[in-house]
């Protein structure tokens, strides 16, 4: 009960007192997650650099890059009139289609943008919708167009103080335009690698990748990996790194634990190994991918791995913008869409998780799907929506949509459930195949494996 009160008061304080304001989005799903207790790791300062701005620049404080200790007691939250010592941190995983863009807004009103999606991602308008008109730090994690393309427009249209990169060049039009845009913007240009620290006011980005003597030829593996601690909430932003970087991080001895994981490489199967996720132990995992993308992002194996470590998974393709609001003691997850990720495990039965379920508007959710299915045997999928809603199912094999009998439109029962059963022909190609389910105007999708 105490947890409920604390959480509700926190919500009240969050919504009423703190800056920056909650972004102007329609929050249809809100989850409060208690944080694991975790002591900050001291920031080592051997040959590593902290890139504080000169003290004459008022915008960025040059305070030491040490994570803030959480308060000993939540007493301050018990009085709605009390002003918290520090404000909130907002981290918004912006829906930019197939690409990446993450906005960080501090209580002091400072902003950092990690990547900007493709050049046609509409990132500038999306930032303006979130009330952002200038950026203190742009991080370009690596020079692929789905990460830097949109940054060109950001640099060309709003003030940017500093651009931080991994220093790895690329011989493409997109990258050349990005360099030109930094020139025109007159932004400070900095290259960082493992062990460097990039402060933004009272928060600090710890750089975990690329390594000091990185020789990767795959630009994805050279991506900036950043870790951020706020209060007792920790974030790990993996950019497009995959298994080789995960192995390097595992053996680096650095703290890679994180409550909130930005999933590597749009959820592709070459990222998010079980060994890596077991060390990170995320409670919340967010991937960024375009709906119906050509690359199979996210891969079902990644979702399975994330679920296996108990993470609640959010994707920008299904949830739209995913916003994390961190206070000193806990954090909230809000999304613009009420998407459902297939086979996401039930959250812990905390009172607030229950409240989330009750308040969730009617969408469509995959309850279960048999996978893998052997050729020649019967597949089955159960979905849940509102009672009495007409639902359709489409199974996309390599040869196109399945015409198997049993896949006809059906109406949900009194509990909102609907089940389809169909035969997987002996001629069906092996692989992971997409299944779309629509109930009324709501859609979701999952994958199943044919062996």
């Amino acid at each position, binding site marked *: 009960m105490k947890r409920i009160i604390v959480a509700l008061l926190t919500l009240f304080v969050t919504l009423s007192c703190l800056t920056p304001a909650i972004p102007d989005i329609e929050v249809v799903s809100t989850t409060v997650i208690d944080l694991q207790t975790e002591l900050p790791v001291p920031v080592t300062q051997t040959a590593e650099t902290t890139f504080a701005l000169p003290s004459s620049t008022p915008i960025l404080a040059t305070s030491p890059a040490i994570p803030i200790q959480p308060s000993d007691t939540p007493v301050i939250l018990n009085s709605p009139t009390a002003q918290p010592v520090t404000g909130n941190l907002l981290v918004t995983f912006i829906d930019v289609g197939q690409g990446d863009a993450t906005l960080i807004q501090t209580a002091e009103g400072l902003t950092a943008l990690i990547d900007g999606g493709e050049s*046609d991602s509409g990132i500038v308008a999306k930032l303006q919708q979130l009330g952002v008109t200038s950026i203190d730090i742009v991080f370009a994690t690596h020079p692929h167009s789905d990460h830097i393309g949109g940054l060109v427009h950001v640099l060309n249209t709003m003030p940017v103080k500093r651009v931080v990169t991994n220093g790895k060049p690329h011989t493409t039009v997109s990258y050349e335009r990005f*360099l030109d845009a930094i020139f025109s913007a007159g932004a400070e240009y900095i290259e960082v690698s493992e062990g460097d620290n990039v402060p933004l006011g009272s928060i600090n980005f710890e750089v975990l990748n690329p390594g000091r003597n990185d020789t990767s030829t795959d630009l994805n593996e050279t991506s900036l990996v950043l870790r951020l601690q706020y209060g007792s909430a920790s974030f790990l932003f993996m950019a497009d790194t995959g298994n080789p970087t995960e192995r390097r991080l595992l053996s680096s001895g650095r703290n890679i634990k994180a409550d909130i994981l930005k999933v590597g490489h749009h959820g592709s199967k070459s990222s998010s190994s079980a060994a890596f996720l077991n060390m990170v132990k995320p409670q919340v995992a967010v991937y960024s991918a375009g709906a119906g993308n050509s690359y199979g992002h996210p891969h079902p194996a990644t979702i399975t791995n994330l679920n296996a470590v108990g993470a609640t998974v959010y994707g920008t393709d299904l949830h739209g913008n995913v916003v994390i609001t961190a206070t000193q003691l806990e954090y909230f997850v809000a999304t613009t869409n009420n998407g459902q990720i297939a086979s996401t495990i039930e959250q812990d039965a905390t009172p607030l998780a229950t409240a989330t379920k009750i308040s969730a508007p009617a969408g469509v959710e995959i309850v279960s799907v048999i996978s893998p299915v052997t050729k020649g045997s019967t597949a089955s999928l159960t979905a849940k929506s509102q009672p009495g809603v007409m639902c359709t199912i489409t199974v996309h094999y390599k040869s196109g949509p399945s015409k198997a009998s049993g896949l006809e439109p059906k109406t949900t029962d009194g509990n909102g459930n609907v089940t389809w059963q169909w035969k997987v022909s002996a001629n069906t190609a092996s692989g992971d195949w997409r299944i779309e389910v629509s109930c009324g105007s709501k859609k979701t999708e999952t994958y199943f494996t044919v062996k």
Partner: protein
Amino acid sequence: MTKAAIDRFEGEWAVIVLEDDRRFNFPRKKLPEGCKAGSWLQVEVIDGDIKSLVIDEQETELARQRISDKLAALRRGDHLKKSDG
């Protein structure tokens, strides 16, 4: 023919970005020999599809040199010196 470069590979696809910012997924297997991420190409686009493409080694080298010079200038902070007058 239009200038383009291979931005990256995503599984079986090569992502090709044209000078006018148009993007195409092109089967990696169908690329001419010697193509790498960052290779420049001459592509022929008809009805919104890449009909043919050839690798352009010379343009690749020119771009590498040009970009290398721009990056060196950024690292020196030439663009900041200018704004100081």
